């Protein structure tokens, strides 16, 4: 498929981004660069200086809401993008309402509890809508342990599935960005089918 054909196919797609931290910010930037035109961004958090070791933000944006800062960055890449932002800690009912019109959802939460909540919500409410999870992205090295797999029906997983963030396994740009871009890459693969 040519670049022009890819852009033509992607321009009508809408992607939901559940969390705009390390996974969400990096995956969304990749998707915006290659022709996805419409996004629903959701996150409740503000940017801290400690986020800059992995999240697609800049020092001047520290203190800003992540959804607003990410929208600004995306519009710098393409000012014709359609970006809906929700400054909210997503609950199950928010997921079913805010992401209803999306073709696909990228799960980019930090907490395991939130990941469990979105998986269960999508299984019950959106059995046809692809959900791409990022699981196991902390630390350094271990490139050969990273993989993508279809877990069940519409639920996909990117990452190593086992490395949880901790003091000894911090989330850092190289590995977080690899997993975020695996999610973006898989999203495009599914949307181009």
């Amino acid at each position, binding site marked *: 498929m040519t670049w022009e054909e890819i852009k033509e196919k992607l321009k009508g797609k809408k992607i939901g981004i559940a969390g705009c931290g390390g996974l969400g910010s990096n995956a969304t930037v990749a998707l915006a660069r290659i022709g996805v035109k419409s996004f629903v961004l959701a996150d409740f958090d503000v940017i801290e200086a400690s986020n800059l070791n992995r999240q697609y933000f800049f020092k001047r944006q520290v203190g800003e809401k992540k959804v607003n800062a990410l929208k600004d960055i995306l519009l710098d890449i393409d000012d014709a993008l359609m970006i809906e932002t929700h400054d909210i800690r997503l609950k199950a009912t928010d997921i079913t309402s805010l992401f209803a019109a999306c073709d696909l959802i990228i799960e980019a939460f930090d907490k*395991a509890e939130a990941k*469990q909540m979105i*998986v*269960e919500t999508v299984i019950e409410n959106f059995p046809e809508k692809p959900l791409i*999870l990022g699981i*196991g992205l902390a630390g350094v090295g271990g490139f050969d342990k990273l993989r993508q797999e279809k877990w*069940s029906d519409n639920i996909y997983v990117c990452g190593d599935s086992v490395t949880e963030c901790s003091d000894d396994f911090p989330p850092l740009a190289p590995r977080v960005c690899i997993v975020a871009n695996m999610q973006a890459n898989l999203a495009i693969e599914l949307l181009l089918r």
Partner: protein
Amino acid sequence: MNIILNNRPETIDGKSITISELIIYKNYTFRLLVTKLNGKLVKRDERDKVMVNDGDTVEVLHLISGG
């Protein structure tokens, strides 16, 4: 009994077992899981009651923090 667990055939002792017992049997130690039986979601508080029988398909996903 024979089941399919995460896309792989698996032989389990006995005729049936709850989802919770299967989790212990398989030594899944992760705190947060999502479980499905024959394509349908089984929530945490149902795992003690829902039975897995011969020929069933079970899917277990474990979740960890980081993102």
